[in-house]
């Protein structure tokens, strides 16, 4: 065999081998998805607590509505955790998810940076600071939805005019306030603990609290049925409930 032919055949073999190994990453159980762990799409506000309940899953965190839209566009998943029943129920109606189960509740707080540049003492101060830098989420993101509900109940909707950024999810709001870029933002009570040294939380009056219910739903055709069921049992079971309570979630 001539050297050139060897070289050519070698190059071809290398191409085939590389392509094959790349495709192997996508195969079920292949290295592309860390073994046979269930694939979990979950609301950003669950990013701390879920991995504590079980590390036996591959997590992708984002805003519940973005994740629901990804599922509609064909994203694979085994279990979906939403910060609002709106999206789990819609996916169930559309035949993409099994019957949703409520597993946690939450409430809203206002956070301000420790240095509190706008000198916000209560939620009503938000309306009294003309140059306030408020960060909220879009009206389709659950936290954005709940924020508007709170402001409406308190007759403070005009505060939204002071919005300086529409964040893609609740973690975006937490980050902007914790780093002091923004003066204030609405987040879930459970988002405060991880940044407790950087922010101060102000309560939202009981009468204005929206009903924040978290629901989970298993995919209609999960890739990993057993893994998905084990995960759901872990979240709904005593350990899951203890972890949720420790992270200051409420239980339904």
């Amino acid at each position, binding site marked *: 065999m001539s050297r*050139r032919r060897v070289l*050519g055949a070698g190059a071809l073999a290398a*191409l085939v081998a590389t392509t094959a190994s790349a495709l192997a990453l996508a195969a079920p159980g292949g290295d592309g998805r860390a073994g046979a762990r269930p694939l979990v799409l979950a609301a950003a506000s669950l990013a701390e607590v879920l991995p504590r309940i079980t590390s036996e899953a591959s997590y992708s965190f984002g805003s519940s*509505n973005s994740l629901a839209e990804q599922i509609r566009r064909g994203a694979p998943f085994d279990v979906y955790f939403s910060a609002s029943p709106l999206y789990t129920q819609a996916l169930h109606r559309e035949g993409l998810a099994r019957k949703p189960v409520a597993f946690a509740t939450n409430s809203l707080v206002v956070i301000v940076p420790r240095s509190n540049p706008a000198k916000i003492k209560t939620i009503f101060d938000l309306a009294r600071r003309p140059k306030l830098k408020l960060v909220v989420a879009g009206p389709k993101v659950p936290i954005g939805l709940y924020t508007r509900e709170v402001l409406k109940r308190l007759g403070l909707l005009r505060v939204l005019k002071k919005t300086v950024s529409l964040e893609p999810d609740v973690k975006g709001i937490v980050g902007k306030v914790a780093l002091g870029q923004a003066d204030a933002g609405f987040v879930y009570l459970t988002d405060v603990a991880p940044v407790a040294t950087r922010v101060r939380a102000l309560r939202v009056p009981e009468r204005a609290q929206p009903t924040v219910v978290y629901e989970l739903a298993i995919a209609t055709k999960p890739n990993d049925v057993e893994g998905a069921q084990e995960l759901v049992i872990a979240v709904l079971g005593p350990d899951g409930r203890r972890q949720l309570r420790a992270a200051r979630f409420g239980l339904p």
Partner: protein
Amino acid sequence: MRSSSFAAALVAAAALSLVFLLIPIVAIFVELSPGELADGLTSQVARDALRVTAETNLAALALIVLFGTPTAYLLATRSFRGRALLVTLVELPLVLPPAVAGIGLLAAFGRLGLLGGTLEALGIEIAFTKLAVVLAVTYVASPFYVRTAIAAFEAVDPDLVAASRTLGAGPARTFGRVALPLAAGGLGAGLALAFARGLGEFGATIMFAGSFQGVTQTLSLAVYQEFDVDFDLALAIGALLVLASALILFAAKLIPAWKRSNSTSITAFAPSGSR
């Protein structure tokens, strides 16, 4: 026959690469009817995003040219200890994850950042303003210009520069009348590359500047925000970005061709000694 398997390997690899690169782009246009494209691009969200993108990118490009050109000229024409280190520094944003750039900008220019207090005392407001977008775009896009500009200045024949000096022209005049015109093709190409990168900038912007329609929401941020609100609108803006980026990238290849015929945008990444 002898080289047929090698040729087959080349063609197979090239075909696969091209198909892989083209499929997502073709898919955007397949999913989008011309009517939806027109509706999307005339919407308020798209028009605001286009305006914000144009304003911030023009300002960023002006800053990049104003400060990047002298920097590149200095690095291209002087040899000194630590030059390699400085060039690395200039190139760093090229390979830095945009999220890291965003965190860095926050730590430096954020209200509680390193320079936050000074800027506030000077009455300069950056948080959630267009200035924040300009800084983010300038930071991530400048290496594309500076890197190409260094190569362009290095390619200027040193004999011509020496001749200009012996004929009595000062260093400033030599720069303006000899080096700058000779490097103009490369500088133009670098500017086009920086513009293409700035147009697509997302990570550093959303972390540092936030996203607000008509103020800080650029085209790339609008695509992300509209993804779960109005998918057709996201596709339409995506299509616009594809067309604009392709046009700019193609222009980057044509500009140096005015001067030399064999130049490609690869020069942006070529080792600095290459001519």
